[in-house]
């Protein structure tokens, strides 16, 4: 079966094989730049709002190294207690300290315009990703149909015959002889690595990302921070701070004893 070899016109190679690959590479690069251009810059927050968002991060940074901390206990405790007081009094909240009688509520994500922008942006990029692929598939099906393009070096099962030999009605031909649409699929999967090389890791041309991402993923990214009620978060953070304070352990503690031991001036443990 393998000894039978079809003779293919070299012009097919020049006018179909290379052009399809070239077009797909160029369209991928185009998609990447279109996605970049379509992304609207993130909305600038006011100073108070930014301070509110960053306040949590401050205590998280402090807590992250508490059990192996580079700062001595006096400093750590003073920062920790200052933050704790500030959270309780609500000095970092965007609208100032909460009034005793006003109920606190989180903004509704559907009505909050900033979150809607995030969702729209995600869906726009999805559309940009899909459209070129459909167009190229249509172009290939229209112009490059009905002939054998290339022979695959590896065998496939008969089930693939209908997909890879579309337009060629030969029931007995080896599945390894395939039409141009299968070359499109090979390129579709195989060019991701090339895009990663030329466009950098996080590029907009990556087709493997299209299948895993969805507008819901983009929504998930846009939401955090907006509907959260910072007052409640601050209260929770106070408990965390207290816990971490209990765990605090300075790396420089007993440093004099450790150094003496290291150089043998003091009896080892």
């Amino acid at each position, binding site marked *: 079966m393998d000894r039978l070899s*079809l003779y293919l016109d070299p012009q097919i190679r020049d006018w179909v*094989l290379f052009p399809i*690959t070239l077009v797909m590479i160029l369209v991928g690069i185009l998609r990447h730049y279109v996605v970049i251009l379509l992304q609207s810059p993130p909305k600038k927050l006011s100073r108070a709002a930014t301070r509110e968002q960053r306040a949590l991060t401050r205590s998280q940074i402090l*807590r992250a190294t508490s059990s192996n901390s580079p700062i001595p206990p006096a400093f750590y405790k003073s920062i920790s207690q200052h933050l704790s007081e500030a959270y309780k009094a609500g000095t970092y909240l965007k609208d100032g300290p909460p009034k005793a009688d006003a109920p606190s509520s989180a903004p509704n994500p559907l009505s909050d315009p900033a979150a809607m922008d995030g969702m729209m942006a995600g869906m726009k990029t999805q559309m940009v990703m899909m459209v070129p692929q459909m167009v190229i598939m249509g172009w290939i099906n229209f112009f490059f149909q009905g002939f054998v393009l290339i022979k695959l*070096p*590896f065998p496939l099962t008969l089930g693939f015959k209908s997909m890879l030999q579309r337009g060629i009605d030969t029931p007995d031909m080896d599945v390894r002889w395939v039409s141009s649409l299968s070359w499109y699929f090979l390129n579709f999967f195989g060019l*991701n690595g090339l895009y990663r090389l030329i466009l950098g890791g996080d590029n907009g041309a990556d087709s493997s990302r299209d299948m895993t991402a969805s507008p819901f993923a983009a929504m998930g990214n846009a939401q955090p921070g907006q509907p959260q009620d910072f007052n409640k978060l601050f209260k929770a953070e106070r408990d965390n701070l207290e816990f971490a304070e209990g765990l605090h352990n300075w790396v420089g503690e007993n440093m004099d004893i450790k150094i003496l031991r290291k150089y043998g001036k003091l009896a080892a443990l």
Partner: protein
Amino acid sequence: MATTTDNAAQLIFAPNVLHNQALTSVKFLSFCFAGAVAGILGLENWLGFALFIASIVSTSFIIYAINCRGKPAKYLPGGLGELVNPGQDNIFTFILVWTLFYGIIHVYD
């Protein structure tokens, strides 16, 4: 956010970790060349995939011996597994380049 810390994670310097991701482009290029070799030699079926496996082994070995100096865990977060893993994209890249060269050289005159 967890209140316990990962002491080993504290010692990692992020920009260096990012730089070591250059490993992925090294792997990509080596699989491109391996695909070209497989195509030019006219390897078929399992011989081609055997070359793929051989190229994974030799690339990983060279990086292991020369770059990581026998300690991949020190340079890569995933350790030995991440060093050897070809990555999902690279398998398809290998097949694409293999098919391309096989077609150019052996199918067309």
